[in-house]
């Protein structure tokens, strides 16, 4: 079973969000890192870039595959996790902690409310498995 912390919000594209005020910290879920396998490369946007909700803002690559990463909320990238340039494997080891990817200043912080709760994301994963 994959780890799904209660205090986060989730998207159906397997990203997690930690919302604090109008800032969202974003990464990929335990389920996503497990499905990808060994992460060898993370491509992140530049600080100051703006994205609409559901835009791809970067990509994460394993030995075998590439997956785009989408932001479920609109806003401006205010910080990126540059440590992932040298240690992309942290995404596997600690997806909800040191494996975070970007911080986004949300245009509309209400947008995060519509995302899945931990419970809803767990149900979504179960329905995907069937």
């Amino acid at each position, binding site marked *: 079973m994959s780890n799904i912390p209660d205090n986060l919000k989730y998207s159906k594209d397997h990203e997690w969000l930690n919302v604090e005020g109008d800032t969202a910290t974003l990464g990929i879920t335990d389920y996503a890192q497990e499905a990808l*396998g*060994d992460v*060898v*490369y993370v*491509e992140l946007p530049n600080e100051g870039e703006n994205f609409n909700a559901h835009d791809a803002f970067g*990509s994460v*690559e*394993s*030995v*075998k595959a*590439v997956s785009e990463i989408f932001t479920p909320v609109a806003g401006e990238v205010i910080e990126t996790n540059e440590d992932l*340039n040298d240690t992309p494997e942290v995404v596997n080891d600690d997806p909800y902690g040191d494996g975070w990817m970007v911080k986004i200043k949300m245009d509309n912080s209400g947008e995060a409310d519509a995302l899945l709760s931990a419970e809803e994301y767990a149900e979504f994963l179960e329905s995907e498995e069937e």
Partner: protein
Amino acid sequence: MSDPNLQKTPLNAVHRELGGKMVDFGGWDMPVLYPAGTIKEHIRTRTSSGLFDVSHMGEIHVDGKDAIPFVNHLTTNNVEKLVDGQAHYSALTYVNGTVVDDLLVYRFGPERLLLVVNAATQDKDWEWIRSHSDGFDVDLRHASTEYCQIAIQGPSALGILQGLTDTPLDEIKYYHFSNGTVDGVASIISRTGYTGEDGFEVYADASEAVRLWNKMLDAGNYGSEDGILPCGLAARNTLRLEAAMSLYGHEISEDITPLEANLGWICKLTTDFIGRDALAEQKRAGLTRKLVGFEMTDRGIARDGFDIYIDDRKSGFVTSGSPAPFLKKNIGLAFVPAEFANIGQEIKIDVRGKMLAAEIVPTPFYKRAK
């Protein structure tokens, strides 16, 4: 649950028990990786040993008075040079010189050869071989389901396997084989592989697959710090790519000749095989494109099929591209125009819309210390 339409090797249930992530590989339900992951599997094969289920490969027996002339008629290498107990790498080619499949040819005797072909192409190969047998005194048998094939590869492979057999393994030369027993099971023990490491490929009756596999895992101390690891198809691919070995459908195909893919050494143009004239003409006229190795100099990973640009012009394509887990670089093989196929040549690769720099480097990328 597995797809009932997929073919399975005799080790299918074992892969699932080991936690293998199963995928559809050319119609076969095969493990792409195990819980250790591709990087660990790859590196362990280079530093200790890796175990691979390659039972999906196809075996075709060619027996009879004309076995050697028949296979010489179909394949690019010179079968007459093989002695009993020797194998070689070769290719089945079409009249135009492109490739039906690549294969190993084993010689058991002057009238007994075994062809080992790729899994996904074996039915096509079988039809091709069978349809060209008129006039040859040969008995052909597509025997894939009778065999299991297990590859044990890496610097510890010989020691592990030696503990299970009386056959003196260090006396088997590279690309030679011996009939023997492994843990009492009649086996063909072949000093071959697809990883760039020393190692063996063991062929035995399919019914013995699970026992042989488990014995090799036990003998290799599976589960210990530097013990043997079962390896999936992803590690098999990255290992062969570091060693710059060709993969059918990538470096060679129905659109690519062996000469273009640096396989001139398996094309013995003095023998008369299907496709010989086309290859001789290609050699005479000179190649217009060549397969080269490249290393990314920009951050980023080139993948199979990505376009190559030289001087802002689309000039070729990546045949295989991947991170190289042991070398810790991003590497690949690609076709480029012959005039640019020089070590040190800078190229650009279109990585999902971004033009990233790479440099042509010598191959193989990885060569083991002897």
